[in-house]
């Protein structure tokens, strides 16, 4: 029996370990947003949101404190923070497309062995929404895909070739799932970390492309 699968909070915590001091970080909607809660206390990170707010504070949970004109790209109200800046949409994407975002964490439907990303359609939906995710995937210095390892019916989401429409080719640098951390390298997909209780074979069994065990393969550090 393999171990437990990580919950969303723990997945976000693991992804947030990638943030280095002073980095400009953009979090996609969904689970990636949760990464904002797990910035290591000894680090300061500048959050950028597609709609043009930069350096904002935590998400507001009390509607009494929410400002409809201070929301992130996921339409969540956020707190102002000293040093925050507001820019318009064009400038916000000059920042993204000029390579000024250090890390983006994006949700994913599928990631291929080359790091191709599919995330702008929903299965069964005719119309997709690119939003700003394609810009981030093409232009951020580093892209982390944060997703469950398999679909609800158990099929691998890390695949040889995408079956869903592609958002951006060869853009994913790191995949963080609810059972593994996988680096996309020129040699192929390197399994770097596994959730507690999982074996290489078990993770491989839920992953379509062949995984290369890292020389340093270890259990995901939680906290």
């Amino acid at each position, binding site marked *: 029996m393999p171990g437990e699968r990580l919950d969303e909070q723990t997945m976000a915590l693991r992804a947030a370990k990638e943030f280095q001091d002073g980095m400009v970080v953009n979090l996609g*909607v*969904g689970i990636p947003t949760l990464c904002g809660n797990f910035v290591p206390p000894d680090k300061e990170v500048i959050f950028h*949101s*597609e*709609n*043009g*707010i930069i350096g904002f504070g935590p998400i*507001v*949970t009390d*509607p009494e404190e*929410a*400002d*409809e*004109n*201070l*929301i*992130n*790209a996921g*339409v*969540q*109200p956020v707190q102002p923070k000293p040093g925050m800046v*507001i*820019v*318009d*949409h*064009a400038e*916000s*994407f000059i920042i*993204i*497309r000029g390579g000024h975002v250090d890390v983006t964490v994006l949700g994913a439907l599928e990631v291929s062995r080359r790091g191709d990303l599919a995330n702008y359609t*929903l299965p069964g*939906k*005719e*119309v*997709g*929404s*690119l*939003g*700003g*995710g*394609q*810009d981030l995937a*093409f*232009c951020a210095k580093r892209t982390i895909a944060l997703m469950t390892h398999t679909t609800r019916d158990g099929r691998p989401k890390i695949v040889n070739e995408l079956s869903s*429409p*592609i*958002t*951006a*080719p060869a853009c994913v640098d790191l995949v963080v799932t609810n059972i593994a951390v996988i680096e996309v390298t020129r040699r192929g997909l390197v399994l770097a970390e596994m959730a507690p209780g999982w074996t290489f074979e078990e993770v491989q069994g839920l992953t379509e492309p062949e995984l290369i065990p890292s020389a340093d393969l270890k259990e995901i550090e939680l906290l």
Partner: protein
Amino acid sequence: MAVNKIVGSFNEAVADVFGGAVLLIGGFGGPGECPSYLIAAVARKGVNNLTIVGNSGGWGPDLIEMLRARMASVLRFPPDWYDPGLLVDRGQVSKGILSFPAAPGHIHTPFEKAVMAGKAELELIGQGSLAERMRAAKGGIAAFYTPVGVGTVVAEGKEVREFEGRSYLLERALKGDFSLVRAHKADRYGNLVYRGSSRTMNATMAGASSVTIAEVDEVVEPGALDPECVVTPGIYVQRVVVRPRDPRPWDEPT
């Protein structure tokens, strides 16, 4: 005569919006960013065959009511949030050039339904190229090369060219007939400031159409806006109209 771009009513502000027009409509997706009363006035006017350009094609009144209830514990919606979905719902829109036409999850936006019913055509474009294409129109740039979208759905029918070993897509300027934008304050010159994250698409769209119409909370005297902090120079704005003090139903003349 002193320059004065303030007009007296929303009906007057949109009087020349014509059937078949291309409308750049501000806002991103939140409840406080839309030029609600300008959209309502276009809905009342009933012009058809519109092309709408923006981030999303809107939620429309029904989904806004559903979201209002669902989001109540997080964010209160103003009672007078009318978005481009109103125009789509009423069958006035035949094309959308949009980044976020489809709702996340399993609900369908009015624009999704219109596409599925064969009533509207979609040109899907990411937010970055959308913004930059509108700015190009504002600045007389015919086209530009961006790496974003090469090898994906947005590249269909577009030229791809290499610069220094990387592939770029040629994106064309996107000019509107009318930009409908929401701002916070204006003076009679049409200078605009916004409030927080509502600046987003609104400021980008101002100036990117033949006619830019701004819906504002308040008109102030010239000099009341700090020259260092004006976001949209009045040069880009042809008309300014003030939102009603008390929320009004969309179908009531304003």
